[in-house]
């Protein structure tokens, strides 16, 4: 209940409220994203100075640096950036639409659908397809999309209702997980190990082809989301109020949900089912920004920071080359708990 007023700003047909704190957090998160992106490129078998990295990025670097950065390290960092952004935004969208802090592409079954397809490919082909760089990501993308459409189709009954959507999502998710578990229980233990390595998510050995596909898809989707998202805020007040304010709520919900599904599928096909970013990033961004609802841009940026820095830690600090999915969760889980505990202690003091 802050009594201070925030000034409104109007430029042409657009208007918004100027909230310095939210703007500051967003700018800081963007800066942090750029920083970890550069650090991720600079660190490797031999270190390239941060200044040299930035120089190369703007096209004025030396020939050697350019080769290492553009050909070897850039794809990995970019896949991390794209997948993190996509997962964060996808999570913020699902949590907003379902009005439930537990909702995320994981809960709606998109991730587990992608996993089930990928595990099927690995176990059915006896590991032959995993050598090809396109087979597994394509299968995961297809599985995620099909599951997303399945959930949407099953939840459709004269429109989409948040409560029905998540309950259907939860049941599809349970079925897909059971399918994965069953496939793993039937399979040869070597295939299981290979599938498990994909299931925890990884940014290892990415190529430019993968980067371009996911980059174009994600960029197009993010544009659509940002264009539609100004209609999302009134929807937090409920459908009736939103309709009264002139929002075509079922159309907006359909478009945004579709974008959330597509974004999550793109991310999973690029980086594997990296867990929890979609769940945690919106909740953490919300608390950092002191916003009552999951913020889209900040969630995406925080997702990217989380994914890239986890990959960085996985490569450098930890021994044995742990995959990024595990590090994400080991950092993201406790950080969420820390924010909760701090908020609780502050409130009681």
């Amino acid at each position: 209940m802050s009594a201070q007023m925030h000034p409104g700003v109007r430029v042409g047909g657009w208007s918004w409220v100027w909230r310095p704190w939210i703007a500051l957090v967003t700018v800081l998160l963007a800066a942090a994203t750029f920083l970890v992106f550069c650090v991720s490129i600079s660190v490797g078998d031999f270190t390239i100075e941060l200044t040299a990295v930035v120089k190369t990025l703007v096209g004025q670097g030396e020939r050697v640096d350019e080769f290492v950065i553009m050909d070897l390290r850039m794809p990995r960092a970019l896949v991390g950036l794209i997948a993190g952004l996509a997962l964060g935004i996808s999570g913020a969208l699902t949590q907003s639409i379902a009005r439930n802090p537990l909702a995320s592409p994981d809960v709606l079954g998109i991730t587990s659908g992608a996993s089930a397809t990928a595990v099927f490919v690995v176990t059915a082909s006896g590991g032959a397809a995993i050598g090809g760089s396109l087979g597994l990501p394509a299968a995961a993308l297809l599985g995620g999309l099909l599951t997303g459409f399945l959930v949407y189709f099953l939840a459709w009954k004269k429109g989409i209702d948040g409560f029905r959507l998540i309950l259907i999502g939860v049941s599809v998710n349970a079925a897909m997980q059971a399918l994965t578990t069953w496939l793993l229980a039937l399979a040869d233990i070597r295939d299981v190990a290979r599938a498990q390595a994909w299931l925890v998510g990884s940014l290892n050995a990415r190529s430019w082809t993968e980067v371009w596909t996911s980059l174009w898809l994600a960029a197009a989707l993010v544009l659509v989301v940002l264009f539609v998202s100004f209609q999302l805020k009134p929807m937090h007040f409920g459908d009736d109020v939103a309709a009264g304010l002139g929002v075509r709520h079922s159309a907006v919900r359909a478009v945004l949900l579709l974008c959330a599904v597509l974004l999550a599928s793109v991310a999973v096909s690029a980086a594997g089912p990296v867990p929890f970013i979609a769940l945690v990033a919106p909740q953490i961004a919300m608390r950092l920004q002191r916003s009552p609802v999951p913020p889209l841009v900040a969630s995406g940026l925080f997702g990217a920071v989380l994914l890239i820095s986890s990959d960085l830690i996985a490569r450098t600090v930890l021994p044995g080359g742990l995959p990024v999915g595990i590090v994400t969760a080991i950092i993201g889980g406790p950080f969420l708990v820390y924010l909760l505990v701090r908020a609780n202690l502050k409130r009681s003091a």
Partner: protein
Amino acid sequence: MSIVEEQRGPAPAPAAGNPRQRRLAGLACLVALLAAAAVLSLVVGARSLTPAEVWQGLFGEPGTDQRLTEITLIVQTLRVPRTVLAVVAGIALGMAGALIQGHTRNPIADTGLLGVNSGASFAVVLAVYLFGLQNPVQYLWFAFLGAGAAGVVVFGLSSLGRGAGNPLTLVLAGQGVTIFLTAMTGAIALADKQALDVLRFFNAGSVQGVGYDVIGLAAVFVAAGVVLALFNLPAINLLNLGDDVARGLGVNIALGRTIGVVAVTLLAGAATAACGPIAFLGLMVAHIARWLTGPDYRFLVPYAGLLGALVLLVADITGRLVVRPAELQAGIVIALIGAPFFAALVWLGKFRQA
């Protein structure tokens, strides 16, 4: 309350009967169904027995007859334990699912929410990794420890400061701990193939092959949880009117929530340790129970418990039949057959928000 009564005045149709009597009759029906399913569970399996043979196996004198000894062995060491465990764990998971939804007011809250599932899995994997345990009888004790420890940590974190009154804090703290433990489990499973091998079967969720000692321990915890849960039921009804109203009606909110969470941890922890993480069962039967009884938790929770036992038992029997002579784990059957059924009920609009 009198306002509610007045509004309700002309509404009930005479044919509907007393809702209380109707609900009690439904409860009796469920018990009867459960008994029938239990008998079926003793009869059905890789080797089908007649009810008469089961009776002999249960109570017959140990004779020299080769066939009879075999039947006695099958019934007493295989069929009875898994039937008992399915009933105990089913009741526990069903009641825990209904309780956690009542306390968090979140329709997708499940029994894994407090971290007990991931705690149990983590402890199992750790035990296999550190001590090379291969026998379920040995690592199940670790599952108990893990489930309990995770539950205590989640509850402790969420009740620091003023958190005990806030269901959202509990939910998110549970998620945070679950995230962390699942990742650690994954890390160990990646490093150690033996642990991965154990994990993939533990995660499937099954009531088969668990000894009487583990079942006994689980039953003790479940019994304690059931007592606490039943004690907690009137408080949940009041808490669901909103914290302010509940406080005004004289409910000790922190105590009510604490008892509820402890009960959920005991019930879900014991069941998960004994038969693996079957989180979807609790979620599913809680919604079905709410559809059958309405929002009164004094009936909803017992219904959910009996339904949970019934569903788990039927799933176990189905799992024995579909891929004979092999078996499909009960957890997989519940998700693969239960989920479409549940989705159909959702689509038909049978469920209401918690």
